[in-house]
């Protein structure tokens, strides 16, 4: 299992778009992934407040959900997003790192179901949540 975690980490770090946004994988095992995205000016969506663009949060959520699927013990191989819904509860505080945790909570032969939550330094007060369905390419 350790090999698989290391592989997933390497894979995420090899995704050009995840690298562009500055994503940092923290943990990936048994269907749960944690990825951080430190604040940077390029991610700003609201020039008045300096709040990160929803699209950057979406990209982080999508990556984290995909990583959770790939780290699930019943799944081998890659995955692709079928659909992903993001709910934005509040603006992330400018300057703070956003951390997402995604859980792949159910897997069938063809579909993986995932939910995720994003927080900033105020970890009890979510910034956004996500639910999604992902493809299963190889089932153990």
């Amino acid at each position, binding site marked *: 299992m350790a090999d698989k975690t290391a592989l997933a980490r390497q894979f995420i770090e090899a995704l050009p778009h995840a690298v562009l946004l500055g994503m940092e994988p923290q943990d990936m095992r048994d269907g749960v992934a944690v990825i951080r995205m430190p604040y940077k000016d390029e991610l700003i969506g609201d020039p*008045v407040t300096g709040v990160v*663009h929803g*699209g950057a949060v979406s*990209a982080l*959520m999508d990556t984290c959900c995909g990583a959770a699927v790939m780290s699930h013990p019943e799944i081998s191989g890659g995955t*692709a997003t*079928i*659909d992903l819904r993001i709910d934005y509860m509040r603006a992330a505080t400018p300057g703070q790192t956003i951390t997402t945790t995604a859980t792949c909570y159910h897997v069938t032969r063809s579909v993986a179901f995932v939910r995720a939550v994003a927080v900033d330094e105020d970890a009890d007060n979510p910034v956004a949540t996500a639910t999604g369905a992902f493809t299963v390419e190889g089932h153990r």
Partner: protein
Amino acid sequence: MSPRKPPEPVQVIKQRRDAALRALVDAVPYIRFLGVVFERRGDELTGILPYREVLIGNPLLPALHGGATAAFLEITAVMTLNWSYLWEDLEAGKLDLEGTAPQDLPRLPKTIDFTVDYLRTGLPRDAYARARITRAGRRYASVQVEGWQDNRDRPYAQATGHFVMPASRE
């Protein structure tokens, strides 16, 4: 009968509209970071995401990152909604955005939720998107957006979003 006011010369209208659009787009760092640009036909906007290697999410296929696609569609939805919200005041000359500093621009609609359907693999080439406002209320708006690549009739992604509109500027 009083003589009717002659219509504005076309280049004056175009210049004003394009300057306003440029002010809105250039103010958002993330739009520039992704490389999204907008084309305008009258009041209709088309978002364009020119292909770059940094947009790739699956290097094996290769395919665009779902997150890049989601962001592109959300950018197009918000910009189309904001553009339509400001259009009347821009046309009436009540609002002039040319040379306005980013922090002085009108407040943006805020995303409540955004749902993306991935219909086909995003290919390593340019993508286009257009949004349709299905309801624009005083407080809330619903927007649908469709993204395509080579073939307009074969969208690669579609999305629906709900937004809170900014408080009136009056």
